[in-house]
């Protein structure tokens, strides 16, 4: 018995730690992303101006990400680029989530021909290759930062709209909502107390998982040259520029900003996953 006791204690400790672990992950990811967005105000524009005496320097203590062919500090440029990308992604993903909520709620609650029309639009958007649609919309509205935001916002809502619609339909037809009507609750009360707790977590997680898509597509559009204008240090432009210097051995120009992009996207992913685990009663206490 005495030999069995310690593992039991350890098991219970481990269990109580999982919730804390989730909270810590959420906190760290949020802190990391906020730090990147706010970093441009802290470090300023000093590193963006060319210093020709310090060209093409590999990563060192003075320049953690190295310098480029004009002697600009790559860490400063990458942070500026990532901050811009995150803000563009944030805006585009929020607009996308709003469109998705409105259409999903309308389709789920109104039903009939409204539902049919919205489902048809969703199907049309799904049937087109995503990147082609993205390029078309960005090109049609004139490119630039505005073009990227509009294109990303207009092309990312269908999957989330479908999730919201399904959730609303499922909750609406469930026994407990029917029962709530019979218990004398008003449609508004039911929407507030039965619908919102189901839709909000989906929406929050959907919004957060939209970020990586939005950022990657923003980077992709900038990379092929119809996105953010070349004089701005966006992450896609930095990566596109680095392509020309890869063959000459300046690996840090591509690898370091690429790692930063990867880490930021993964941070959003972890944030979304852990938030989902925390918001669902089935996993929130485990």
């Amino acid at each position, binding site marked *: 018995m005495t030999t069995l006791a310690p593992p039991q204690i350890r098991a219970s400790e481990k269990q109580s730690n999982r919730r804390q672990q989730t909270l810590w992950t959420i906190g760290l990811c949020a802190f990391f992303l906020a730090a990147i967005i706010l970093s441009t105000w802290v470090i300023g524009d000093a590193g963006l101006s060319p210093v020709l005496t310090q060209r093409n320097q590999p990563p060192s203590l003075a320049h953690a990400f190295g310098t480029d062919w004009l002697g600009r500090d790559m860490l400063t440029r990458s942070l500026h680029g990532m901050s811009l990308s995150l803000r563009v992604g944030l805006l585009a993903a929020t607009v996308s989530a709003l469109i998705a909520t409105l259409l999903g709620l309308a389709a789920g609650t109104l039903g009939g021909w409204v539902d049919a029309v919205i489902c048809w639009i969703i199907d049309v958007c799904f049937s087109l290759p995503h990147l082609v649609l993205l390029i078309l919309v960005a090109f049609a509205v004139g490119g630039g930062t505005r073009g990227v935001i509009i294109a990303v916002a207009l092309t990312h809502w269908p999957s989330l709209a479908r999730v919201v619609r399904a959730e609303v339909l499922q909750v609406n037809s*469930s026994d407990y909502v029917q029962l*709530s009507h*019979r*218990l*004398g609750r008003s449609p508004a009360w039911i929407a507030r107390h039965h619908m919102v*707790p189901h839709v909000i977590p989906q929406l929050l997680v959907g919004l957060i998982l939209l970020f990586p898509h939005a950022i990657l597509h923003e980077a992709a559009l900038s990379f092929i040259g119809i996105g953010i204008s070349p004089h701005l240090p966006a992450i896609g432009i930095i990566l596109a520029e680095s392509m020309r210097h890869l063959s000459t051995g300046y690996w840090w120009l591509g690898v370091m900003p690429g790692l930063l992009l990867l880490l930021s996207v993964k941070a959003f992913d972890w944030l979304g996953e852990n938030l989902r685990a925390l918001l669902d009663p089935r996993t929130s206490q485990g």
Partner: protein
Amino acid sequence: MLIGKELWFRYAAQMPWVVQDQTISVAPGEVVGLMAPSGFGKTTLAKLLAGYLIPTKGQVSVDGQPLPRRRYCPVQLVFQNPELSVNPRWRIDQILREGYPPQMHQLDALGIHEGWLTRYPHELSGGELQRIAIARTLNSQTRYLIADEMTAMLDANTQALIWRAVLDYTRSHQIGVLVVSHDWPLVRRLCDRILDLATMHHSTLVSQ
């Protein structure tokens, strides 16, 4: 008196009739059994009587009044599957307080422990959850209770315990009960009178 008069129901104009010309009545304090094989429209009839569905023809009235569409319905239905009739994101005490909150001694009579109240539905077993679903309907506003296979998924001991608590309450508060089931021994044990949908196409009453 809960009266469903000449009830007809189908889901759409071209669909076959699910309920055809059924007339059914339950008096206050009376326990009526409703029996039929599967697929005879027992659940549909129960849903018509509790206002979940609106009859295509005919009407349901409680003490001379039609069923209210907005207010608390005096006819309450307890579903067969309690997992589906509670919101999985609500805690038990919130579920119990959705209608008119039941009294503490009611919860004791049904064997509901206080420790359950702070839990989520998935942390209770089916039998425990069914007691919650029943307790939710036992309040002063409920005049008629429709039990649609209410204890079909419970063991005999739990069935007896739950039915004793429910019938004690309904007898003392003059609540009419409609027991929808195909468990003949159970229905014969509980009910004052039994209706059999298979044979009562013209409202024949099969007496005990």
